[in-house]
């Protein structure tokens, strides 16, 4: 997987990423868009999938499609085994204490809604507070607003500075006896800021407040250890970490999950049902009503295997280089201003251009096969805080290259050219 060229580069001790070889694992990366090789820089929206993940999906449907947790027949047993093995892989991936703490959901959004509708609705009352941050995606704002509205509670927000870094003093000041839940993003999708979630969790725990971390943008870039973080909940989506759409994970500490009421009712989440009384199933099934996304769950396990097969330090070093290079090169294009200059950042470059709206930037880059995201990135409060309607965002994965950054930069010069700037 990783190679060290000890002859040509004797001083390189860290392993290097063989990006050209890795790119071959992702069939879509060799596609042409508008007659140009695809330059896919929209990884924060969704990542591309390696062939092994695509194969895992079709293998399930072609070779052992059947329902899980019920049948005594061969196929059902095989599918159940594959699905539950995937749960074990994810448990190890997050270093969770028990597999029962891994709840399969549709994605980060459903994971957060699950906690909001169970823990939120049972532990939050009138005048209580739920604390989020200025860097949240709408998915970690709206579910809490819904709880606040129903329970007449108050949503409090940790502010950030102009660079896109949270104000930790203000965070500490906002923690109080009325705070019932702290919900924070690990990595900002719009700006790339990596938040000090470890420290924030410790601070919240001093007040006995449970902490949910939105890890959607973190898991593709770093190893996450939920026991080390000591968070009560950790949510992420499969599709941003090279797995399929429609599958994600809620990690929750066993004691928390056991004390919470079920989220949805139905099959699989029960032990016994009568019209008089239903006995709910044990974890994790208590939170997994109905036939799940079986293929997705299995393929997510394969994505975890794929990531485990790579050197995370090499990934981080490569992505850090891409971030530095892209930041420098983009900022040097006349009219470009980088938005979000946090000291600790994932490989996300958000920017605006003088006199050119991000939407126009997106269209002009697309003509050259460059895929970026433009808009408010489902984080309108960040845009409002920074006084801009939208940004253009290039977000990198380990399969991106400096050559692709060069194509992006040429595209930005072309934007200026088209607009006569």
């Amino acid at each position: 997987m990783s190679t060290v060229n000890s002859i040509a580069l004797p001083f390189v001790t860290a392993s290097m990423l063989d990006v050209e070889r890795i790119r071959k694992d992702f069939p879509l990366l060799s596609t042409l868009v508008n007659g140009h090789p695809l330059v896919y820089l929209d990884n924060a929206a969704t990542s591309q999938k390696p062939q092994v993940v695509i194969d895992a999906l079709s293998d399930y449907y072609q070779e052992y499609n059947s329902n899980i947790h019920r049948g005594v027949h061969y196929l059902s047993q095989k599918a159940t085994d594959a699905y539950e093995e995937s749960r074990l892989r994810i448990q190890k991936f997050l270093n969770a204490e028990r597999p029962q703490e891994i709840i399969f959901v549709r994605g980060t959004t459903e994971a957060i809604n699950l906690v909001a509708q169970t823990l939120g609705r049972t532990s939050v009352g009138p005048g209580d507070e739920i604390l989020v941050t200025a860097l949240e995606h709408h998915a970690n704002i709206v579910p809490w607003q819904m709880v606040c509205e129903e329970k007449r509670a108050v949503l409090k927000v940790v502010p950030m500075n102009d660079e896109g870094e949270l104000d930790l003093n203000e965070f500490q000041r906002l923690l109080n006896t009325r705070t019932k839940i702290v919900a924070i993003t690990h990595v900002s999708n719009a700006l790339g800021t990596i938040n000090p979630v470890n420290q924030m969790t410790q601070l919240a725990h001093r007040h006995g407040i449970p902490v949910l971390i939105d890890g959607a943008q973190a898991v593709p870039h770093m190893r996450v250890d939920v026991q080390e973080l000591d968070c009560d909940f950790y949510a992420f989506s499969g599709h941003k970490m090279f797995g399929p759409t429609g599958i994600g994970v809620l990690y929750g500490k066993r004691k928390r999950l056991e004390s919470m009421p079920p989220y949805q009712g139905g099959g699989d989440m029960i032990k016994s049902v009568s019209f008089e009384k239903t006995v709910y199933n044990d974890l994790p099934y208590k939170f997994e009503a109905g036939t799940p996304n079986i293929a997705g769950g299995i393929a997510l396990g394969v994505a975890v295997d794929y990531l485990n097969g790579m050197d995370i330090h090499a990934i981080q070093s490569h992505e850090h280089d891409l971030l530095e290079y892209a930041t420098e090169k983009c900022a040097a294009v006349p009219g470009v201003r980088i938005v979000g200059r946090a000291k600790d950042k994932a490989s996300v470059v958000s920017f605006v251009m003088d006199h050119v709206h991000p939407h126009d930037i997106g269209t002009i880059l697309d003509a050259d096969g460059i895929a970026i995201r433009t808009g408010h990135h489902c984080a309108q409060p960040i845009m409002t805080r920074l006084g801009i309607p939208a940004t253009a965002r290039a977000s990198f994965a380990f399969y991106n290259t400096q050559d692709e950054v060069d194509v992006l930069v040429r595209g930005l010069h072309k934007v200026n050219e088209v607009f006569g700037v």
Partner: protein
Amino acid sequence: MNELRALYQEVILDHNKSPRNFRRMENATSVVEGYNPLCGDHYTIYLNVVENVVKEISFQGAGCAISKASASMMSTILKGKTTEEAEQLFNQFHHLVTGTARADEDIETLGRLAAFAGVSEFPARVKCASLAWHTVHSALQGDQKVISTE
């Protein structure tokens, strides 16, 4: 590059840079907001309609070059038109940017608006070009709420 040039024509870039009738209107007979939540384009359009004639039209707001130039050029075209003529132009413009104009439809009558023909090659941008027009269309129908493209 040619398709891009067809989209970002000089006249469009000019109206984006120096939008016409870009101001509030105190004596408006209707004020309607147009909003595209996907990209954040957001305009307020002011109309002064007297006896079915658009006496004055102006707008304010922010958005991409296509949406702003479209609002600006629309404001110059609609001034003095009857509401029926405005509705007819709305339909013609819509056909133009979606590439659904009938063979017998004459885009000559659209005058400068024909500059937006290039939009039909960029389906993702049709909403940008038509936002202001949808907003005016709704205003002429008597709506006062925020008009969304979604």
